[in-house]
């Protein structure tokens, strides 16, 4: 008669968050434990709790108990397993790991036995056979027994190795001496045995060896899978008490992450006020600033509603913190602006966190916060990118490193990295792996990729590679840092989650990524860097200093017709969000005339609306070419502003609520599923629900299906209206400055680089075409940044732009202050005078000479370079001390030819990324014209379907995923841009030249739309053969 074995709890399990050790995810381990009907499972990753967030969710959904623990590495002792008995124990564990991690370099943990004993409160310790190679030292038992008392267990582990019995006997003997109960475990590294090869490969990757040379680094057998109860009972048949004790421990460890009660840090609240009262007070102060004395009733109503929700959810602290950060930025003149769904909140608007009036815009507050979801709000704060670190350090300083840390980001295996790492571990040639990785791109390794690489995918080694590569996908490789996510807590943060050092100096990071933080309903704030804000800040300062014009985001005149006229001409280089090739092509078609048009323009050119097929219907309706209809009368209020076409996430949610009777919570779930449907496939569960409910309300099934497809399209990334509205404000501000203050705008844009879509060369060329006077870098006039100078008397703009030293390639910033100091005393008279007075290094002098910055001292740039190449001599020697100088002086001074204009431009671009002497194709135009190659202006004026030959410099190449393999290119010449469309068939023929050429010849046909948007549809690509001196111009890569 067979008896049902007693269940057990696996207490020694490492997931793939024990980086490059565990070969299964926490989800897989828990799912397998559930399949095996085990009552609980412990997760004991190495020196961390990285995976407990998702493990907790999975365990909760399957109804299995999760014991949270970790394997702690100790100095001079075998590792120790610690399990959290209760909330106190979990805090002890997190504090202990934080202690070990903070003092060690990134990726390591250093702890002593004594420190572990000092953090024993609420923890169970499992001492014993944790390491295959070494026996545990009994010397640690005394201190552990004293610290952990009855919470210490002797761990006997069977790995089916000859050493097991001897080690386990020694452990049991010591345990007997100290009266410690035994507990049994196998070392679980994967959920099922078929992951064993992957575990071997991970070991090889960790040790940087191949599987053929790994030797004893890999495990000797496959006995590391989760065992069923009867198998476990068989393995430990001689130790029934040790099996029973696994269940005793399960009974004792009742801690769950649900017990984490998060409280937001509350700082500087005036005495006698609750956080909510203080928030209300600050908001009402803000409302007057925003609306003056006459506050619209709708605003007050909206605010009251928001107050009630925030009070109910007890979120006041979060808003107070955001307000404090925004105030800090304001006090320190750091430009910032909230983006994302926060712009749906009138409270955020009144507190100055966001800049869009949600009441005026009719934005949906529930998109931001709802009682039903009770999820923490998510405010993303854009900060001028050059000053973001100041804000980050302020947060650390204000809340302390004990209460603030940045959120981690798990760097995961993707197809390319998986092929490279797994293939290397399999001992495959690096060149083969490189080829496969390149062909695979973002796709999984499959037969098509083998075929494309000309390799036989059926050989055993290739089959191993394919199988293991696809298994390792999405495994965490290591942890890095989130760009701007912060976790703030009222209690010390190390009571919630271990904190460790980041690679970057002065940064600390928690062991959870943003998904864990969101899943556990913790508050995070995102402090993100935005170059456009830096640029605006620069521009406002320049206007104040040079023109005495004091502008800000709030005081820029609204709805300026000239600005919109400029945008309708697609004249938008440097305009935030509207400068890309696709946006510029859309501008003449959408013809923006007001702020809301910009909101739509920004939202329209997105993968979501494009793949959802919303662009053309919207444009047709806007142009009056198509009737504006609504799927159902109830949807008219929702879709009216976008002419019956859903363009924003909020609209999708409202459609679901109105047409399919979704609750706000269901609608938000729909939004989340839209965002993740490609990975989770959860959108399909809405399909039936949406269609049936819409049909029931009288919406035609085919129309309902179309609405669903449109909704699904949003999964490819669509904007919420509030987010687009926030961005549109910045777009308008940058467009206004570009239109009215082009010199100041260009100066600010150049000083804020790197940012945006275009290279400095294109920005400079565009500014010159728009009449901005630009002076080259000059040793007598330039500063580090680009500066403004009075323009020539007859110039239409009052100011001209002087390029700064920052644009000289490789010139260190500390070269410049001595130059400025010496120049203030007296202008430089010669190269020798310059070097003598500034002690500029030879290499810096050479860079200055090459870039033309010494032009005022030596007009012939070649002569200047010849002089500069000898700067060591000038600097270190004089004729008195160095007799060789006399000989040198006697030699005839060589004469060098002056640079031609083309050469000068070439030298400029080579040395400083731009040229103020003209466009590289300017001097070549007569030759080009002689070959029948006209400039961009000529192309723009040709009629539709004209066959044309053209040559230009490539400044942009794009193959968007939404374009089905079509390559879009922008070519530039001295007169402007020409946009090319290369269809997939043509691209296949001319792939190499299309991807590599910087100066490109094109034969194709003009395609002119009714809105006068011109594209050149490519038939052939070729290398123009004109001059060997043609300078190569850097071109953008694929995006």
């Amino acid at each position: 008669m067979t008896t049902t074995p007693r269940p057990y709890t696996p207490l020694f399990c490492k997931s793939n968050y024990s980086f490059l050790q565990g070969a299964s995810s926490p989800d897989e381990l828990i799912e397998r434990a559930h399949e095996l009907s085990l009552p609980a499972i412990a997760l004991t990753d190495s020196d961390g709790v990285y995976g407990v967030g998702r493990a907790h969710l999975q365990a909760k959904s399957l109804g299995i108990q999760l014991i949270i623990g970790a394997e702690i590495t100790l100095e001079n002792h075998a590792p120790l397993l610690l399990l959290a008995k209760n909330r106190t124990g979990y805090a002890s564990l997190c504090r202990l790991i934080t202690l070990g991690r903070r003092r060690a370099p990134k990726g390591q943990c250093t702890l002593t036995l004594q420190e572990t004993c000092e953090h024993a409160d609420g923890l169970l310790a499992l001492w014993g056979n944790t390491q295959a190679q070494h026996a545990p030292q009994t010397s640690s038992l005394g201190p552990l027994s004293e610290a952990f008392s009855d919470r210490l267990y002797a761990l006997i582990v069977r790995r089916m190795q000859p050493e097991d019995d001897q080690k386990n006997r020694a452990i049991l003997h010591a345990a007997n001496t100290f009266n410690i109960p035994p507990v049994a475990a196998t070392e679980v590294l994967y959920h099922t045995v078929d992951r064993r090869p992957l575990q071997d490969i991970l070991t090889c990757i960790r040790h940087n060896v191949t599987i053929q040379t790994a030797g004893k680094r890999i495990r000797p057998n496959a006995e590391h899978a989760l065992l069923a109860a009867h198998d476990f009972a068989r393995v430990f048949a001689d130790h029934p008490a040790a099996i029973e004790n696994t269940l005793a421990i399960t009974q004792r460890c009742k801690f769950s992450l649900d017990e984490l009660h998060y409280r937001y840090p509350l700082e500087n609240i005036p005495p006698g006020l609750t956080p909510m009262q203080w928030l209300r007070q600050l908001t009402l102060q803000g409302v007057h600033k925003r609306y003056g004395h006459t506050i619209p009733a709708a605003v007050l109503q909206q605010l009251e509603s928001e107050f009630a929700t925030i009070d109910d959810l007890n979120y006041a602290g979060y808003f107070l913190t955001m307000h404090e950060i925004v105030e800090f930025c304001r006090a320190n003149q750091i430009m910032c602006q909230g983006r994302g769904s926060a712009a749906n909140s009138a409270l955020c608007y009144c507190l100055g966190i966001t800049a869009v009036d949600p009441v005026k815009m009719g934005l949906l507050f529930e998109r931001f916060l709802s009682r039903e979801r009770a999820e923490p709000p998510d405010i993303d704060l854009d900060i001028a990118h050059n000053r973001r670190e100041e804000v980050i350090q302020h947060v650390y300083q204000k809340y302390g490193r004990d209460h603030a840390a940045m959120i981690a980001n798990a760097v995961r295996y993707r197809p390319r990295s998986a092929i490279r790492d797994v293939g290397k571990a399999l001992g495959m040639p690096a060149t083969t792996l490189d080829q496969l990785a390149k062909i695979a791109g973002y796709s999984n390794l499959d037969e098509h990729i083998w075929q494309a690489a000309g390799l036989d995918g059926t050989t055993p080694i290739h089959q191993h590679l394919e199988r293991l590569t696809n298994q390792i996908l999405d495994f965490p490789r290591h942890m890095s840092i989130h760009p701007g996510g912060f976790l703030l807590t009222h209690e010390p943060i190390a009571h919630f989650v271990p904190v460790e050092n980041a690679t970057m100096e002065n940064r600390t990071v928690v062991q959870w990524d943003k998904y864990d933080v969101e899943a556990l309903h913790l508050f995070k704030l995102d402090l993100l860097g935005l170059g456009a804000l830096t640029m605006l800040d620069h521009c406002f300062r320049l206007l104040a200093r040079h023109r005495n014009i004091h502008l800000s985001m709030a005081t820029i005149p609204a709805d300026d017709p000239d600005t919109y006229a400029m945008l309708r001409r697609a004249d938008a280089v440097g305009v935030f969000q509207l400068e890309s090739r696709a946006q510029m092509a859309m501008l003449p078609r959408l013809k923006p005339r007001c702020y809301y048009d910009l909101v739509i323009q920004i939202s329209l050119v997105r993968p979501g609306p494009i793949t959802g097929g919303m662009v053309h219907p919207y444009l047709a309706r806007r142009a009056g070419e198509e009737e504006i209809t609504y799927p159902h009368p109830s949807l008219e209020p929702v879709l009216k502003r976008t002419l019956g076409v859903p363009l924003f996430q909020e609209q999708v949610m409202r459609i679901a609520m109105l047409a399919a009777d979704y609750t706000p919570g269901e609608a938000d779930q729909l939004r989340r599923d839209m965002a993740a449907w490609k990975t989770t496939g959860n959108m399909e569960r809405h399909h039936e629900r949406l269609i049936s409910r819409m049909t029931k309300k009288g919406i035609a099934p085919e129309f309902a299906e179309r609405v669903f497809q449109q909704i699904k399209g949003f999964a490819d990334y669509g904007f919420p209206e509030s987010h687009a509205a926030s961005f549109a404000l910045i777009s308008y501000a940058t467009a206004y400055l570009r239109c009215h203050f082009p010199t100041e705008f260009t100066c600010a844009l150049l000083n804020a680089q790197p940012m945006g879509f275009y290279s400095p060369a294109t920005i400079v060329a565009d500014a010159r075409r728009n009449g901005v006077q630009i002076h080259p870098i000059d040793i007598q006039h330039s500063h580090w940044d680009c500066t403004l100078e009075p323009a020539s008397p007859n110039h239409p703009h009052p100011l001209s732009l002087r390029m700064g030293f920052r644009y000289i390639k490789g010139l260190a910033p500390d070269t410049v202050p001595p130059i400025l100091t010496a120049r203030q005393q007296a202008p430089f008279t010669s190269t020798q005078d310059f070097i003598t007075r500034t002690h500029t290094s030879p290499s810096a002098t050479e860079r200055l000479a090459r870039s033309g910055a010494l032009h005022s001292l030596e007009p012939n740039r070649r002569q200047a370079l010849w002089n500069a190449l000898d700067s060591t001599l000038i600097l270190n020697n004089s004729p008195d001390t160095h007799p060789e100088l006399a000989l040198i002086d006697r030699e005839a001074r060589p004469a060098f030819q002056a640079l031609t204009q083309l050469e000068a431009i070439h030298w400029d671009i080579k040395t400083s990324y731009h040229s103020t002497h003209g466009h590289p194709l300017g001097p070549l135009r007569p030759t080009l014209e002689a070959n029948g190659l006209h400039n961009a202006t000529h192309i723009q004026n040709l009629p539709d379907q004209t066959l044309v030959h053209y040559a230009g410099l490539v400044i942009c190449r794009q193959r968007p995923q939404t374009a089905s393999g079509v390559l879009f290119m922008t070519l530039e010449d001295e007169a402007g841009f020409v946009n090319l469309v290369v269809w997939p068939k043509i691209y296949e023929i001319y792939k190499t030249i299309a991807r590599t050429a910087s100066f490109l010849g094109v034969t194709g046909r003009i395609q002119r739309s009714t809105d006068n948007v011109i594209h050149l549809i490519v038939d052939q690509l070729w290398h123009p053969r004109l001059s060997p001196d043609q300078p190569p111009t850097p071109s953008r890569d694929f995006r």
Partner: protein
Amino acid sequence: MDRWACVNVFALPLQLLLIKQPDWKELPVALVQELAPDSRLLELNRLAKNRGIHTGMRFSEALSLVPELRTGRIETHELELATEQIVTCLLAFSPGVEPFPNMPGIFWLNASGLQSLYPTLNDWTRAIKRALDETINLYANVVVGFTRFATFAIARTYRKTGVFQSPEQEHHAALAVPLHQLAKTWTGEQFNTRDLEQLGIRTVADFLALPPTNLRRRFGKHAYDFYQLAKNTHTEKPLQPFQPPTPDISSRQFEYAEHNTTRLLFLLKQLIHPLCTRLDARNEKVAELLITFILERLPQRENNQLEERIRPAEPTLDERILLDLVRLRLESITLTAGVTELHVLARGTRTVVEQLGLFVTQTTRRDLQSANRALARVRAEFGEHSVSYLRLREAHLPEAQMQWVPFHELKPARLAAEPHPQLIRRFFLTPEPLAHARSNTLPPGLKLCAGPHIISGGWWVREVHREYYFTQASNDALLWIFYDHKRRRWFTQAELR
């Protein structure tokens, strides 16, 4: 020498690669330094250039543009071998041939005094080209002129074959040569031609117009040396003809087939003696002798050659020791036919004067040198692999944990730590199947002592899954046995004592 010729074998390494890989003729091919993704492309064939890739590009970048690109590298020894072949070929046209060490594929020839052999120098150059093409399948050009520098500069730059009739004509042509073509290849160390080019200095003539001392201050010694070389061609060094090294080999042919090993030993003694004398003159000692016996041709035997390698315990010039080892080897081998030829090749090594050894007192009774001599004798008598030892390796399978490695030299013994009483496992070189034990239950007659211990793995080459047990047999012998799950059989791995 009044006439110089320079032979330029175009892109020699790439040509060698294409010879090595004849299937690649119709494909884009690139020569790389290393077969690694970040390795740079050194040379390209025409098809590769036509596809838009260029030298200096990284291999991975080129591959992403031209997926069918084939790449390879040429080892140094392959290049040396090819150079020797080319020299051999060129020696047929001139007694003086000098390969250029800084650039494979460049050779200078003495072109003086050939009038009686060839009607014109043009005929001579054409004959050289044809010979290289037909015998080694390599393409080259030949320039005949009056100076080392000018012939090199012109051959390297213009890739045409021709003869200069006057020094002035040659000088004029050399001045027009682009500077960047020569700088690196001539000096082996590149000076900054990029800067010179930016200054508008593009040809040798432009370069020679620069003030030399100023040039040295700015562009360094290599530029200055190159300047002097190009300027003062009359002081350039004379041709350094290639002299193939003479091998340390002695041979003897017999008019009859010698069967008697004693006589052979005496004959070998006569051959070894001059080799030792020759090596001694070069301060070298014999590290190894390679003796080749050419046997008389018999119709039933395909191979009529026998090679024996003799290594003394340490390099020596003591002919007695060498002959003793030769004798031992001769006694151990069987000559299947009479010997008609004998060749002895001696490999020498530098003599190390061990003065310190004179002052070292012998403190141990164990004489290492004697032991090594004895081992050398064993090796001489029983073959190279007769003296081996077991080296431990990191592996899980017991038989994979040990490897037989040839033993070369005995090192001083070290005292073992405190002896540890342990059972000795006597391994079977190949695990022995246990008779009548087919099922996976423990074979009858064996008592389980410990186990199972599992070793499994090798999934990437040959899967193994074994369950090991320590057992006691009825005769009290302790056996280490395993059940092989793949072969479904029991085996004995070792006996324990």
